[in-house]
C-alpha cells in the first residue's frame, strides 16, 4: 500500500484517500506553440523504471494537490512537496541521489 505524507495537512495518507494526477513538472505548450512541442506536452511522458515525479491530490482529506517523488519499482517514497514547486526541493534530490546515484528524470538530475 502506497502511503504519502500530504505536505499541507501533514497526514500520512494511504492510497485510498488519494487521487493520482499523472506526471509532475509538465510544461504546457498551448496555442501558438509548434506541433512537436504540443505533441510532447500531450503525449510524451518519462515512464521510466526508477525515480518518478507525480502529482497527487489528497482527495478525501484537505483536497490539495501536491507532488511526490517515488520509485516506480520498489515504491519507495523519497518525499512529497507542495504543488507550487517548479522543481523538486534539494533535500529530495539528495535523498534520491543517495539511493540512485546518477539518476536523471526530464530536466532534473
Amino acid at each position: 500500500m502506497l502511503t504519502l505524507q500530504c505536505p499541507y495537512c501533514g497526514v500520512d495518507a494511504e492510497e485510498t484517500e488519494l487521487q493520482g494526477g499523472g506526471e509532475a513538472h509538465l510544461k504546457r505548450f498551448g496555442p501558438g506553440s509548434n506541433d512537436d512541442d504540443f505533441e510532447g506536452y500531450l503525449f510524451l511522458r518519462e515512464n521510466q523504471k526508477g525515480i518518478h515525479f507525480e502529482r497527487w491530490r489528497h482527495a478525501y482529506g484537505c483536497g490539495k494537490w501536491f507532488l511526490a517523488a517515488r520509485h516506480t519499482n520498489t515504491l519507495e517514497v523519497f518525499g512529497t512537496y507542495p504543488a507550487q514547486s517548479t522543481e523538486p526541493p534539494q533535500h529530495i534530490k539528495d535523498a534520491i541521489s543517495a539511493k540512485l546515484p546518477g539518476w536523471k528524470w526530464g530536466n532534473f538530475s
Partner: protein
Amino acid sequence: MSNAVTPLGGAKTNIGGLTLEDMGLQGMISLRGDLSSKALAKAVKAVTGQGVPELRTANVMGGKGAAWMSPDELLLFVPYAEADAAVATISETMKAEHHLAVNVSDARGFMRLSGAGAHEVMSKNAPVDFHKDVFTAGMFRRSRLGQVAAAFWLDAEGGFNVVCFRSVADYVYRLLEVSAEAGAVDAL
C-alpha cells in the same frame, strides 16, 4: 417557512454497548480564506466564541466552535437558527478580504458515536490511526468512512462526532451501526 428536518430524523441506536445518535439540526458554515488573517480570527471569535483551530483540530463546545478543514478552510459550528445571521456577521467583518462564507447546515448530516469501543468502530471504516494514544480528544480529521467522504473529531467526553454530506448520512449511519454490532473487542 418550511419545517427543517435532519436527514436521519432524530435516529438513535444503542448497539454493542455503544450509542449512535443523530445530533439534530446544527448550524454549519463553510468558511474559506487566509487562516492567518486577523479579520478571519475576529470573525470566527464573533460567531463561535472560539479561536481559529490549529492544524487538524476542532474546538467545538456545546454546538459552537470551529474545525480545521484544510489550509484555507474552516467549518464553523453555530446554533441552527443563528447560521444566516452568523454568515452576515462574517461577511461584514471580513468585507475587506477575499473570503467565502456559506451556510451549509442543510447540506450536512451530523451524528455522534460514543461508548467503549468507539475508536475500534471508527477504525473499521477509515484509513486513520485511531489508537487511543494517537487520536486524542480535540483531534479532527477529514477522510472517508467506508466509501464516502466524512469528517470527524473526538470530543472531550470520548465520543466521535461525524459530519458527512446529507445525501449519504443514511449510509454512514447504517455503516457505523453495522460496525458497532460486535461492540468493543479490545483491539485498540
